C-alpha cells in the first residue's frame, strides 16, 4: 500500500520550561488530497502540531514523515517547500507593500527568476480571485481578501499541503466563506491536501475527516458523521455540536421522526419534508 503523505508516529513534544507534554504519543496519517480538520480546546496541542508539521519544532520522541521524508533539522527546508501555512491574523502575515509584492515575497526568497515569478504571481492571484487587486495596498483590503492573498503567496510556491491555523477565526462571516470557498476550489483543481486547525465546527463538519485533540493527545478520529455522534462528550472536551445536530436531537427528543443526527440543515429539512409527505 502506498504510504500516506503525512505520517506521525508516536510523536511527543514538550516546550522548554513547561511541565507536562504539549503533545503526548500522537500517531495519525493524512493521505494525499484529503481535507482533515483538527479540533480541540485551547491548549489541546493543535497549534503545536502545526509547528511540528512545518518543522518550526521537532518531535522529542517519535517521528514525522512528509512524503516519505523524515522531518529533521537537515531536511526541514525540503519539507517546508511542501507545506504552506496560513495563520490566524491577516495583518501579521502581509509583508509586501502591494498585493503582488506580497505574493512575490516567497518566490523571491527562493531565488525564482523574474519572468517565472511574474507569471506565477499572476496565476496564483487569479486562482484566489484577487488578480484585479494586483497593485492595491493591504489596508484597502478586507480580512478575507488579505487571507486570500496569503493563500496566493503559498500557491505560488506550489506546495503539496496547505495548513490553515485558525485562518478564518478573525474574519467576519462573509470573509470566512470567501476563504473556505477558495480553499475548496483549490483543493480540487490543485490537488492540495488541506489540514485545517479550527474552532469552527460548521467548517469541520465539511472536512473529509476530523481529528479531535484533548490535552496533548489524539482523543478520537473519524468522519464528521462519526465524530458528531459523540454528542455531549464533545461538550465535555470544551467543544460544541454543530447546529443541525443539536436541532436533530431536540426534534427527536420532542418525539418527531428524525432517524439520525444530520450534519447539514438541508438534509434535515428534506427529512422533515419527506416524513411529512408520507403521512
Amino acid at each position: 500500500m502506498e504510504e500516506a503523505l503525512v505520517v506521525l508516529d508516536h510523536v511527543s513534544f514538550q516546550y522548554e520550561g513547561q511541565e507536562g507534554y504539549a503533545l503526548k504519543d500522537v500517531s495519525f496519517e493524512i493521505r494525499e488530497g484529503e481535507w482533515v480538520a483538527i479540533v480541540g480546546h485551547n491548549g489541546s496541542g493543535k497549534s503545536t502540531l502545526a509547528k511540528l508539521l512545518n518543522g518550526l519544532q521537532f518531535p522529542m520522541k517519535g517521528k514525522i514523515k512528509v512524503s516519505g521524508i523524515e522531518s529533521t533539522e537537515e531536511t526541514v527546508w525540503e519539507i517546508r517547500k511542501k507545506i504552506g501555512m496560513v495563520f490566524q491574523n491577516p495583518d501579521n502575515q502581509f509583508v509586501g507593500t502591494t498585493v503582488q509584492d506580497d505574493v512575490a515575497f516567497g518566490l523571491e526568497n527562493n531565488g525564482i527568476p523574474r519572468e517565472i515569478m511574474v507569471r506565477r504571481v499572476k496565476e496564483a492571484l487569479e486562482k484566489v480571485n484577487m488578480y484585479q487587486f494586483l497593485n492595491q495596498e493591504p489596508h484597502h483590503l478586507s480580512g478575507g481578501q488579505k487571507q486570500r492573498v496569503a493563500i496566493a503567496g503559498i500557491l505560488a510556491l506550489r506546495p503539496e499541503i496547505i495548513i490553515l491555523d485558525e485562518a478564518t477565526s478573525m474574519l467576519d462571516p462573509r470573509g470566512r466563506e470567501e476563504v473556505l470557498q477558495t480553499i475548496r476550489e483549490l483543493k480540487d483543481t490543485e490537488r492540495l491536501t488541506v489540514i485545517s486547525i479550527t474552532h469552527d465546527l460548521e467548517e469541520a463538519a465539511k472536512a473529509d475527516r476530523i481529528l479531535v485533540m484533548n490535552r496533548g493527545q489524539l482523543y478520537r478520529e473519524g468522519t464528521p458523521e462519526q465524530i458528531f455522534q459523540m454528542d455531549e462528550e464533545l461538550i465535555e472536551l470544551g467543544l460544541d455540536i454543530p447546529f443541525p445536530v443539536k436541532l436533530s436531537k431536540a426534534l427527536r427528543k420532542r418525539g418527531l421522526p428524525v432517524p439520525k443526527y444530520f450534519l447539514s440543515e438541508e438534509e434535515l429539512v428534506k427529512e422533515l419534508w419527506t416524513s411529512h409527505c408520507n403521512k
Partner: protein
Amino acid sequence: MDISLQQVEYRYQADTPFERLAIQDVSIDIPSGTYLAIIGHTGSGKSTVLQHLNALLKPTGGKVIIGDREISRNNKEKRLRDIRQKVGIVFQFPEHQLFEETVEKDICFGPMNFGVSEEEAKKRARQAIKQVGLPENILGKSPFDLSGGQMRRAAIAGVLAMEPEVIVLDEPTAGLDPRGRKEIMEMFHRLHRERNLTTVLVTHSMEDAARYADQIVIMHKGNVFKKGSPEEIFSSPEGLIKLGLDVPEIVRFQLKIEQTFQTKLGKTFLSMEELTEAIARLLKRGNPV
C-alpha cells in the same frame, strides 16, 4: 449612565487629502442598563462607533452625549478622564495589552492611574479576579505564564477594576474555543445583571446578539442599517442575508422550513425550544398539499 449618539459623523484625517468618511448620520440611544449589540461587516463602521463611546474619537459632525457631558467638534471638552473611567472598553485580544510583572500589578495599573490608592486598587484586584472566575493565587503570577484563556480573563479584570458603569466589548471571544466563548459571554451577562451595567457588545456573532442583547444595531457602510429588539431585527431576515450578514442559525433554519413547506410559522423564533415546538405543530397538521 445614558449614552446617546446624535447624527454622528466621523471622517478620518479630516481636512487632508487622505480624508475618509467612516460613519455618517449615526443615531443610537443607549439608556442606562441596556445590553446593546452592534453588528456589521469589517469596515462597516462598528469600531469607529465604539471609539466614540468613551470619547477616544471626537465626532466631526453631530454629537455624542455621555452622561451629562457633550462631545462634539467645537466643544473644547477637557477632563475626559472621568468619562474613560466610567466607560471601560475591552478591546479585541485584550491580553496583548498585559505588560506588568504580576497579574495584580497589571490589574491595579488602571485604577491607580486614575488616582485610586494602592490599598484600594489591590482590594479591587481581588474582587475583579474573582468576578472573571480566576483563583486569587493567580494575582502573584506573571501574566505571561497564564494560558491564553486565563490571560484574556486577567485583562478583562483590569477593566472591571476601574469599576465602570458602561462596559464596551469588542469581539471579546475572538480566538477562544467554544467552551471559552460560552463562559466569557455568560460571565459578561452575569456582570451585566449583578452590577447593573450598561453593556455594548460589538460582534460578528448573530447567535450571541440574539441570545444576550435587548437591543441590536446593524451597521452597514458607515450607516445604521437597522435597529431594534432581536425579535424586530430577525423578523425580516431576508434584508440581512442580502447584505451578506449571517442570521442566527435558528432563524435561518426557520426560513428553510418555511420555504420547503411553503408556509409561515407565524412569528420568528429565537430559541431552540420554540422552534422545535413550532416544527412539531407543523408536522402534526398533516399534509398541507
